[in-house]
């Protein structure tokens, strides 16, 4: 490629990076600002424009720590487990849909797949009230199992679609060869199949995790107190004095950290796992 093209490419990439990072930079610096520095005109650079203070952070980590700890733990548990379920069940369903021929009355594989994926079209607001009543009947309102169940259902269609696209391009020959060679079905599963689909599993898990971690509407209505998640906590920072920007910023930084860690860990799989979507 000619040098000019390369330079232009770098410029464009860096421009986009600036666009991506600016709000994040602003949020991080705001978490170190006092009230006046936030309201009385934009202050850009710590130590140059304004004096950074640990006020918001101290609040978050001491006085309000209990307020934060529970939603944080809830979010971690609920997102981790529900994504796990979604990934496992979704993969199983996808495996079934690509390896077996189903026939329920006139419903064949394609129809079942379409039905599963169409659940994604459902705006959550359609189902929220009915879910509330259902969960209340079995006493799962405001409980972690209730939320895990809900998010699993919420993410299943996505998981099925992603894994199905992955599995459909996976040659069956390897599996069949292994089985012919005398490997038991379990052996086949763990030693052959799973390593092959690991990227797909990782990608699916990460996407499901992100959606579950950031979900707001269901969490809003299916929890009262004990099972509140982080997005609710952030939304609740709206005090009688106006949005507490410094607290919100600190919280946002706390909220994004676990996701970033998991994403960094899984990100190499992300691209490989999504390749089949593009086929």
């Amino acid at each position, binding site marked *: *490629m000619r040098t000019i093209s390369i330079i232009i*490419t770098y410029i*464009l*990439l860096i421009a986009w990076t600036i666009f*991506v990072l600016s*709000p994040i930079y*602003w*949020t991080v610096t705001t978490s170190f600002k006092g009230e006046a520095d936030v*309201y*009385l*005109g*934009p202050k*850009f650079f710590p130590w140059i424009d304004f004096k950074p203070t640990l006020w918001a952070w101290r609040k978050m980590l001491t006085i309000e720590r209990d307020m934060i700890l529970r939603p944080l733990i809830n979010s971690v548990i609920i997102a981790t487990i529900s994504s796990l379920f979604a990934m496992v*069940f979704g993969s*199983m*369903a996808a495996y079934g849909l690509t390896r*077996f021929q189903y026939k329920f009355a006139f419903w064949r594989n394609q129809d079942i797949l379409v039905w*599963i994926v*169409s*659940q*994604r*079209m459902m*705006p*959550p*607001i*359609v*189902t*929220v*009230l009915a*879910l509330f*009543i*259902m969960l209340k009947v079995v006493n799962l309102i405001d409980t972690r199992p209730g939320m895990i169940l*809900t998010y699993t*259902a919420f993410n*299943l*269609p*996505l998981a099925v679609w992603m894994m199905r696209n992955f599995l459909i391009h996976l040659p069956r020959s390897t599996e069949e060869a292994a089985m012919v060679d005398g490997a038991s*079905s379990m052996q086949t599963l763990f030693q052959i199949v799973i390593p092959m689909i690991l990227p797909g599993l990782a990608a699916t898990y990460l996407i499901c995790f992100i959606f579950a*971690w950031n979900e*707001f*509407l269901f969490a809003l209505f299916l929890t009262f107190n004990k099972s509140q998640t982080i*997005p609710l906590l*952030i*939304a609740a920072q709206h005090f009688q004095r106006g*949005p507490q*920007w410094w607290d*919100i910023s600190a*919280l*946002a930084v706390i909220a*994004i950290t676990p996701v*970033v860690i998991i*994403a960094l860990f899984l*990100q190499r799989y*992300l*691209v490989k796992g*999504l*390749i089949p*979507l*593009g*086929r």
Partner: protein
Amino acid sequence: MKNLLAAFTGKKVGRVFLAPTVVILLLLTIFPFLFSISLTFGRVSLTGGLGIHFAGIRNWIRLFQDDRFGNAMRNTLFMAIVTVTVQYLLGLGLAMLLNNEKIKGRGIFRVLFLLPMMLSPIAVGYMWRMMFGTLNGPINGILIRLGFAPVEWITNTRIAIYSVILTDIWQWTPFMFLILFAGLQTIPKGLIEAAQADGASSWQQFRHVIFPLLAPATVAAVLLRLLEAFKIIDIIYILTGGGPGMKTESMTLFGYSKGLGTFDLAYGSTIAFSLFITVMVVSIILLLGLREVQEIRLE
């Protein structure tokens, strides 16, 4: 052993694979779905426990006469189409740029680009609300320093919706980028090199080799993103609350404030349902249309 093999590929095992998914989905989405439909034809009374009474199509008539419905629907469609289109073009551009092996640090860029979509939309709403602050936001701060007048990003009736669109683009372009980038990896380099050898320009390479082969990724990305775009609520709720006036109210926000804000459950369900029908119709049109295009391309 042979029996095990037979069992493994038999029907029963097959059903076991599908069962958990189907059961969970049936439980948790079918009943609510039917319940919501029935609500749209009913009237809810809450004194002394939950009671649902039949009310015919009254809710639906009210919906079509409500000018808030048309407004929210227009906003939602407008925002969905614009955001998805721009996100697609940007995502494609970024994927192409980053696909060049000569660029150093591609891994770092890739990770950075993913950040926005990992944030909670609620947090993103607050972030951009700060950014867009009329007097104390950094964007206007820079504009003022450059000599321009401050822009009323989220309080001006004509501009507000574009600010929402901008925020959504910021958050979700990574999603498009990811899928399209993965798709680009699947295009055999050999094909591109062959085209180059034949003397095709970059644009021709793109148009005749890359883009057609990217079609499945395009379909997946656009469809997934479109489905989500129709449901937009979190960002709007925090950024503008639907205002100024009703200029940025989306269908989900409309349903939320009627159904759950004032507990007018039947009407809220009606609103939500109309959204669902719209999403379904648009998806079907899109899928049919894209399938046509795909078939043409494959020839």
